[in-house]
């Protein structure tokens, strides 16, 4: 049965052969809520494809439909040429999912989790044990192999989760917000793992709320909001549409803020926001320039502030944050701010207007 499916799919389209995922007008509704509202994606093989969006944008819903866990209400989705609705088993045998919420069994040990999955994939007992041991070693979990997963740290749990997902050597790996809630060190470990997996030839679809993460890992990014793709392109293309970056300034004295705002607006030719913190302000460098030019402008601004006698405690040129990408792409800020955000990326809180 599987072979006829594969033949049929091969005949279906030559063009989709090089695409890992292809969707057209994909829709999922929950009651009145159009969680995914006509998404078109074309994900090439062999790289990380980033899906960037705020809470509730429809990232998880999209991924679950592509992983055959949720039935689309409209549109089409093909994974390696296989329709997710008509040939779910053909899709399942080539993909793997690391869900947003740990998809490992908390009551079992790390080793037991992996042996269980290896057995379910058809490995015999000794092979399953070997495979589990090799994966635990590769993910730095040997010491914790015989501990229950509920006693793992967040980072260890994530690594086990990813290890479980590559057990079947998938051709396509879905990672749904793999670093949300992780500390910076665990986050960079996950990034290294993702790079290693992609280097081996696996395609990765990664969802995230962080521009920085998508920027570092992804070859292409789709920005989604309210279930729609609002922008798509390489990180460079997206960023130049947003601006070269944002200058974040912290002053020593709050009373100097208005003066600082004027200096920054003049030297950077930028829109300057007053942050919620009374000594902080943020300037977005807009003129589509390169990062180098932005850096040159920023150092000029710092000199001008100094000349004006304004004491600066902290001054940095940051990546455009997701908020800024949003503001630029939609004209409105991302609606739900994410409280759990613990990343190094700097987020500017817009001053109440």
């Amino acid at each position: 049965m599987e072979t006829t499916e594969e033949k049929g799919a091969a005949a279906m389209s030559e063009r989709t052969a090089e695409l890992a995922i292809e969707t057209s007008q994909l829709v999922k509704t929950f009651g009145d809520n159009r969680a995914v509202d006509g998404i078109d994606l074309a994900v090439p093989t062999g790289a990380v494809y980033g899906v960037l969006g705020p809470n509730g944008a429809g990232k998880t819903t999209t991924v679950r439909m592509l992983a055959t866990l949720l039935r689309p209400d409209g549109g089409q989705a093909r994974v390696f040429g296989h329709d997710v609705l008509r040939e779910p088993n053909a899709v399942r045998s080539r993909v793997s999912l690391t869900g947003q919420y740990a998809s490992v069994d908390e009551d079992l040990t790390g080793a037991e989790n992996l042996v269980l999955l290896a057995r379910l994939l058809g490995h015999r007992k000794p092979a399953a044990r070997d495979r589990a041991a090799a994966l635990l070693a590769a993910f730095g979990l040997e010491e914790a192999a015989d501990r229950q997963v509920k006693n793992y740290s967040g980072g260890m749990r994530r690594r086990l989760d990813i290890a479980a997902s590559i057990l079947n050597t998938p051709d396509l790996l879905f990672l749904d917000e793999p670093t949300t809630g992780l500390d910076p060190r665990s986050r960079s470990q996950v990034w290294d793992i993702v790079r290693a997996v992609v280097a081996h030839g696996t395609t990765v679809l990664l969802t995230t709320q962080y521009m920085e993460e998508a920027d570092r890992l992804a070859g292409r990014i789709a920005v989604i909001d309210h279930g729609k793709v609002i922008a798509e392109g390489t990180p460079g293309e997206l960023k130049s549409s947003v601006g070269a970056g944002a200058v974040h300034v912290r002053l020593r004295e709050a009373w100097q803020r208005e003066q600082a705002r004027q200096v920054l607006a003049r030297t950077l030719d930028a829109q300057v926001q007053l942050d919620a913190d009374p000594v902080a302000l943020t300037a977005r460098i807009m003129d589509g320039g390169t990062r180098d030019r932005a850096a040159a402008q920023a150092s000029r601004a710092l000199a001008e502030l100094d000349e004006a006698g304004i004491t600066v405690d902290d001054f940095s040129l940051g990546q455009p944050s997701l908020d800024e990408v949003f503001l630029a792409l939609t004209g409105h800020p991302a609606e739900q701010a994410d409280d759990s955000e613990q990343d190094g990326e700097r987020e500017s809180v817009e001053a109440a207007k």
Partner: protein
Amino acid sequence: MSTASPGQATGTSESPARTDQPAVRDYVPSAETIAAVLSPGARPARPSALSASVTFGWRAMLKIKHVPEQLFDVTAFPIMMTLMFTYLFGGALAGSTREYLQFLLPGIMVMSVVMTTMYTGVTVNNDIEKGVFDRFRSLPMWRPAPMVGYLLGDMFRYTMGATVILVLGLVLGFRPEGGVGGVLAGMALLVAFSFAFSWVWTMFGLMLRSEKSVMGTSMLVLFPLTFLSNILVDPETMPGWLQVFVDVNPVAHLVAAVRGLMAGEVDTGELVWVTASGGVLIVVFGTLTMRLYNRK
């Protein structure tokens, strides 16, 4: 009644940012080792339906090993029921507790085990909320395997529950005429029927939103099925309309069959009844369960 289900016993608190243990602090992912585990040669063939189900049964056993509290339901509860009813009704209904026990024990064994089947629903409901189910559902394997696996694990619990009651009964003076063979046959029938009956709970476990509503619904189904039966008293003293219900109550037939086997008087009619109703339960509720499971 205790509610030491696995989910509750383990707690579900998330601890996203606990620091790593010192031993793994220095983990640096290596591209080579990860590439090595990603190229293990040919993928194995899909496991058979039986092998996948047995693997899930093994998972259930591992859970019992790690969360042994869940066995509390199948030990403490039956002991309490047996003692309570033996001493509450024994004198009044049969003249002596010892005599009543000969009548009651097979019935109370059925009642306790059938009552513990509802934890299947609670476990399914607890589990399905967790991400691990997404992983199972995205594997290319025989779809009912996780459900069958639960039930295989539960059969172990039912066997334990039945054994606990038997031992207690023997201590209190239960002397079955059917001998070892009859008693074992009775217990086997009970466990097999409970396997079939549990499909009702896998369905509710998937259908209902919370553990609480699963428990509530279970009570609503189980109390009439167990109490409005021939377990505690002979139905002949009941009003006619109630006898009509007892006559079609599968649990009552199960009790009659188990009683027969343990007493050494095999009642073929009842055996047929029990086997047939078990088959119907599996077909109807197994199908509904798999429908819900595929749609979730």
